């Protein structure tokens, strides 16, 4: 393959207008997930849960693959898997060390189960790898509506529990002394995490969910410590990664996820450089 061919496979803007209309709903779903993922990412990092996100996504993958095999709704399967993982981690892993070992056990179990289900599945292989690496274009409209609905629900609940969750994330003992229902809040957060991971698995794939749930917040924390600016930037970064990735990808013939992960990663790199420069100027 020569350079021009490669370029055309990666980026092509022929018939762009028509394509854009076809994927309009996917773009909306990507935009909403980018924003909500950016927001919840701030808490994921404050609560040291990045590894948990990965563990939940593998079980979510297993659930989705199981649903594919049984011929039932894949989003529902994905939700069952990720909520089960989220609750197990939430109930058994209140201490960080317990949590990490539980996740370490769950992750290969989920991934292995998922691979087994896919191997047994007689359908097209495109669908199969979509669950691992993203398949948003393959998701039909009613399901996209469901994904958008779930994301908006997570956004709303997150805003309502914002302050107590911030308090609990920083200092659970003091928050409990002040009447914050720590235990319920932690479990509730795991449920929100399970919901948003299930959505992410559908959109960018189980292996890549971190690009929308962790990277944007990590980038934002590099350039700011403001309690307002960090979530706002993180949401912006998530939005730009998701929507930008889809817009760049739809003309070419390659999967969308690498575009999203690459944009997300480049934003992070840029923020690191900016953050390092800012610190040098200050000190």
């Amino acid at each position, binding site marked *: 393959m020569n350079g021009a061919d490669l370029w055309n496979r990666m980026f092509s803007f022929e018939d762009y207008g028509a394509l854009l209309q076809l994927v309009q709903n996917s773009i909306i779903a990507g935009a909403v997930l980018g924003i909500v993922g950016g927001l919840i990412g701030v808490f994921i990092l404050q609560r040291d849960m990045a590894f948990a996100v990965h563990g939940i996504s593998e079980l979510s993958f297993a659930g989705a693959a199981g649903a594919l095999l049984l011929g039932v709704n894949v989003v529902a399967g994905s939700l069952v898997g990720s909520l089960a993982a989220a609750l197990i981690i939430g109930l058994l892993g209140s201490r960080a060390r317990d949590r990490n070992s539980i996740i370490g056990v769950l992750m290969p179990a989920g991934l292995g189960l998922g691979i087994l289900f896919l191997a047994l599945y007689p359908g097209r292989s495109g669908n199969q790898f979509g669950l691992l690496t993203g398949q948003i274009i393959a998701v039909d409209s009613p399901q996209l509506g469901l994904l958008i609905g779930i994301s908006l629900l997570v956004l709303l609940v997150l805003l309502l529990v914002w302050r107590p969750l911030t308090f609990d994330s*920083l200092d659970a003992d003091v928050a409990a002394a002040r*009447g914050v229902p720590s235990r319920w809040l932690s479990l509730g957060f795991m449920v929100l995490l399970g919901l948003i991971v299930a959505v992410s698995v559908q959109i960018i794939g189980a292996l890549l969910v971190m690009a929308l749930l962790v990277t944007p917040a990590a980038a934002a924390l590099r350039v700011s410590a403001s309690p307002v600016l960090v979530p706002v930037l993180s949401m912006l970064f998530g939005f730009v990664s998701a929507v930008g990735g889809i817009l760049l990808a739809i003309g070419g013939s390659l999967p969308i996820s690498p575009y999203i992960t690459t944009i997300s990663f480049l934003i992070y790199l840029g923020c690191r450089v900016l953050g390092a420069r800012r610190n040098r100027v200050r000190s």
Partner: protein
Amino acid sequence: MSPSADGGAGILTIRGAALALGGRTLWSGLDLVLRGGEFLAVLGANGTGKTSLLRAILGQQRLDAGGIELDGRAVRRGDRRIGYVPQQKLIQPGTPMRGRDLIGLGVNGHRFGPPITTRGERGRIDELVAAVGAERYADEPVGNLSGGEQQRLRVGQALAGDPRLLLCDEPLISLDLQHQRGVSGLLDARRRDHGTPVVFVTHDVNPVLGMVDRILYLAAGGYRIGTPDEVLRSEVLTGLYGTPVEVIRSGGRIIVAGLPQHTDHHPEHDG
């Protein structure tokens, strides 16, 4: 003792309290009445139930016997009339929070709903920032502040609810001398100006010796309560521990020597 805010009766009353954890009795028959403005230091080796006592007062630890009352009513979990200053845990750099936000958590951090801080709440946060002398770094990222600065902010956070009682769990640990004075001075000022009694758990009484009214000294299964002069005596601690213990006073400091090895005492206190 300072102005009495309790009209003569105790603010905190502990009656016949007993607690056993893992089959081992930490304390039993514990009676204590804390009056307005009183400064109580809780001393004892690790594992004697100092922190468990605080948790019991916070309503987070059920007693095996007896009861604890605040203003005549049984304590309950999440009672915002109690201000709580935790052990100094350094907040990591990269935490998206400024100094004033840490205090703000004491003002409205427990409240569900849209995360909007009202003008009134902002005013209250400003007052608290001033009350703990944190104006200079209130707008800095809290993760960039020193342990002492963070601990001052935590005192501000604990004062946010205008507490009836202050509980402090080793609040001076790993602070330098100057910040130890600053933080304990804030607690002292609060109990003098507002009559808020202070329960101060510590392994080393020396930084607060000048403000302590009474000491609760916990040792394996037993306890003593009294003024520092009554409790910190060789014969009293020898009786409490059941082995010879010597209390040495030197240059305004108190050193306790000869504590049983297994009690795992902090070297500062061990002498």
